[in-house]
């Protein structure tokens, strides 16, 4: 029993800290203070995950599975939360929605993400997903006097509720087919008997629920509208933390049923097709976007496609590639959204052409944005390239060369719309007056950009950690029950 508490210490600490934030906000009602405490909380939980990294096992009546994989995922969620909270203040002040609740809701969302990644039981899986999603619906509708924000929240809520319904229905069908809710026990039940049609339908619905959250084609239609209408930092949070969480849960589920899925050509074909469609549709739709937020939204669809290639490969290399990819993606996408959030004011500066001549006024900010754009495009010395290389290499190893080839072609297409922003920033002369932004934030973006570069130049250490983390995650049956 005490071991349970030790294992799930990061999750317990995060849940406790969110209550602390609520009490703090109730007593003092000072958003700036709540913000500082939220950042402290993210740092604390991330630190606990680092310390607890080697711990592994099942906790609380086999409800939670904790291992290196979960700790690594926790670190990504905390990093995402920390960066988003750090970069939100100016945007929220400009929009007159600087409430302390924003930080509390973001924190609760991270608790949900951690539960989602640590779920060993489908009940926890659902609770984690809902805790994360409901908090995100609130963040999407934060600017309640703004029609577009309301629209974004409504769309996200209705479609998200529908997806949650599908997922829950899938869970109930799997329970009907096997009589178990714990993932590893379902895997055993499937191994002894054969997978019935009922199980496959349930499994399909379960995966559909996740595909919605990672905005894979054909479940991506909500993405551009929601990202466009939401407060920009919240959109950054949705596209990184929530996506990383959904991918973690997807990896946990898929590895849990690995023996079953490896013998199923249909599964491989379906997930490869979805990955292909996601890459193609995301990139082609992004080409046509003038609005930067919508462009980044479609780009996040395309990146979900690249990561799905790792799921399609279904090898430890592929999963480790996805983990690395989510880490890099968290950094570079929050960076890109953060620059947009910093420069955008009310209805101005939303188009790529508005960034003309940014380099002349704010060289450091433009340089950081260029790094994020090039990294998103997958240009070699940067982190984004290593992430793509890992998942595509895994696909080639898994004899899915056609998929890897399609991915490379799709990223070649994506270079056009990323480089367009760089072109405007560096090659064009500024129009209108200089864009004003606090100097300290330029430094923050420069730091994130340096991290993206470092991940590209020295990826070996992180990749070693992701490989080790993945080994700790795979304990479906040998935990001795």
């Amino acid at each position, binding site marked *: 029993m005490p071991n349970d508490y030790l294992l799930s210490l990061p999750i317990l600490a995060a849940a406790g800290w969110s209550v602390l934030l*609520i009490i703090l906000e*109730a007593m003092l009602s000072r958003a700036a203070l709540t913000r500082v405490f939220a950042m402290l909380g993210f740092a604390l939980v991330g630190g606990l995950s680092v310390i607890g990294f080697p711990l592994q096992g099942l906790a609380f009546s086999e409800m939670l599975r904790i291992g290196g994989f979960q700790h690594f995922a926790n670190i990504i969620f905390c990093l995402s939360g920390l960066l988003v909270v750090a970069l939100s203040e100016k945007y929220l002040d400009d929009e007159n929605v600087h409430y302390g609740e924003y930080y509390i809701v973001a924190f609760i969302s991270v608790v949900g993400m951690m539960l989602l990644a640590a779920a060993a039981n489908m009940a926890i899986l659902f609770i984690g997903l809902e805790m994360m999603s409901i908090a995100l619906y609130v963040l999407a509708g934060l600017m309640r006097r703004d029609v577009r924000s309301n629209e974004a929240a409504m769309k996200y809520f209705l479609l998200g509720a529908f997806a949650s319904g599908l997922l829950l229905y899938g869970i109930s069908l799997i329970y009907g087919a096997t009589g178990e809710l714990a993932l590893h026990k379902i895997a055993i039940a499937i191994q002894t008997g054969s997978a019935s049609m009922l199980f496959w339908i349930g499994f399909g619905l379960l995966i559909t629920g996740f595909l919605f959250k990672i905005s894979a084609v054909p479940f991506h239609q909500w993405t551009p509208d929601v990202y466009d209408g939401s407060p920009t930092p919240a959109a950054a949070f949705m596209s990184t933390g929530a996506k990383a969480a959904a991918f973690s849960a997807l990896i946990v589920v898929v590895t849990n049923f690995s023996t079953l899925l490896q013998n199923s050509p249909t599964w491989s074909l379906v997930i490869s097709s979805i990955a292909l469609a996601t890459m193609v549709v995301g990139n082609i739709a992004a080409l046509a976007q003038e609005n930067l937020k919508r462009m980044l939204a479609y780009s996040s669809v395309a990146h979900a496609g690249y990561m799905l290639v790792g799921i399609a490969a279904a090898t430890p290399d592929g999963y480790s590639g996805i983990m690395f990819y989510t880490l890099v993606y968290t950094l570079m996408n929050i960076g890109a959204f953060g620059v947009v959030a910093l420069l955008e004011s009310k209805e101005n500066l939303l188009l790529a052409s508005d960034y003309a001549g940014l380099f002349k006024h704010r060289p450091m900010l433009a340089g950081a944005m260029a790094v994020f754009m090039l990294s998103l495009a997958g240009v070699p010395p940067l982190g984004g390239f290593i992430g793509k290389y890992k998942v595509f290499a895994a696909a080639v190893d898994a004899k899915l060369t056609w998929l890897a080839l399609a991915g490379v072609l799709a990223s070649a297409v994506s270079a056009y719309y990323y480089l367009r922003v760089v072109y405007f920033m560096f090659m064009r002369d500024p129009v209108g007056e200089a864009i004003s932004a606090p100097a300290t934030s330029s430094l923050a973006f420069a730091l994130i950009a340096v991290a993206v570069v470092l991940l590209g130049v020295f990826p070996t250490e992180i990749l070693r950690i992701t490989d080790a983390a993945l080994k700790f995650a795979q304990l479906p049956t040998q935990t001795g029950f």
Partner: protein
Amino acid sequence: MIESYLPIFAQIVVAIVLGVLLSTLGVLIGPKRKTAQKLTTYESGIEPVGAAKERVSVKYYLVAMLFIVFDIEVVFMYPWAVSFREYGIAGLLSMVTFALLLLAGYFYIIKKGALEWD
């Protein structure tokens, strides 16, 4: 398995056919003598006043939501109270934690003035 649902299916069919048939017959062969009294919404009820799509103060929703939260708390209390002895001190601690979490929310509600009507 499927055959055992046949009676239910038959009953549904009978219900639908009967309903449609009787309504249609009523429309076709029933006498129609319209008077002002008969055309009111509730012939012998209260006169409807105003449109149905009226604005309702958001405060009612707030109260309803808060009611549900604390209603759910009690729902969890009942099964715990029934098997209080079996769960012992661990159960008590879990329940106290649960109640404290809700208490933190309650504290927040009061401090934010959600229970002040004006």
